């Protein structure tokens, strides 16, 4: 059960981070100019093209991924790794 929570937290946080940065980054490129997250302006400073993906969505996904990582850390404080898991981790550290 504990192992499932660990795996779910790592998978969810990584998925959210990569979705916000890489997946939506690709979508933004495919959507055309501007390829970045800032709008394109003309010489008068008027906005002539908006990015395909609102930066708030991308930053929100990344921060959500980091929040999942943080919540998992808090969970690990509340429910420390079992003896077997800790011994495995210690054995791994000793081989380094």
């Amino acid at each position, binding site marked *: 059960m504990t192992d499932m929570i660990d*795996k779910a937290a790592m998978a969810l946080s990584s998925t959210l981070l990569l979705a*916000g*940065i890489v997946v939506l*980054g690709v979508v933004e490129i495919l959507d055309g100019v501007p390829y*970045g*997250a*800032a709008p394109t302006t003309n010489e008068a400073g008027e906005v002539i093209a908006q990015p395909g993906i609102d*930066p*708030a969505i*991308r*930053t*929100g996904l*990344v*921060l959500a991924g*980091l929040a999942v*990582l*943080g919540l998992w*850390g808090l969970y*690990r*404080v509340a429910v*420390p790794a079992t003896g077997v898991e800790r011994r*495995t981790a210690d054995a*791994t550290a000793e*081989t*380094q």
Partner: protein
Amino acid sequence: MAYDVSNPLDGEFDLGRAGPFAPVWIATLRVVVGWWFFHAGVTKLIESGLNFTAGPGYLQGMSGTVLGPVAVWMATTMPGVIEAIVPLAETLIGLALIAGALVRLASFGGAIFMAFFWVGNAEFGHGVVNGDLMGLLLFVTLLVLGAGRYYGLDAVFERLELVENHPRLKHLLG
């Protein structure tokens, strides 16, 4: 340990194959990141003490971003605290990372700072993946790796009787 023979990418992971330079590099990275924040904080302290008035204004300017509600709330309810905590926390986070003391706690604080810098700075003129995001990820990396254990004081702290008797303290160290 996760090991799934049906997935060639899913092996047993450890840092042993990273080579002997890895701990030195992690410690070096920690000190450099620490200097970055120490310099940012201590120069604010020198110039404006605990009255860094740009802090609340910066947070007010984050209105409309994904962290806007939190930022504006902090700026309006506790401007004096923000003015003091920004230079002080930056300096202390920097010192903690340089010394390798309470690195996970300090890195968590640094990540919070960088989240506000990333979301609030320059309207992503250099894209969403910019230097501020890399700084944020550096702090998370130091936190995940427990970078204070490599040539840092956390390695000493973890052997103290207090920490041995209260193992949960280890979550703030390393």
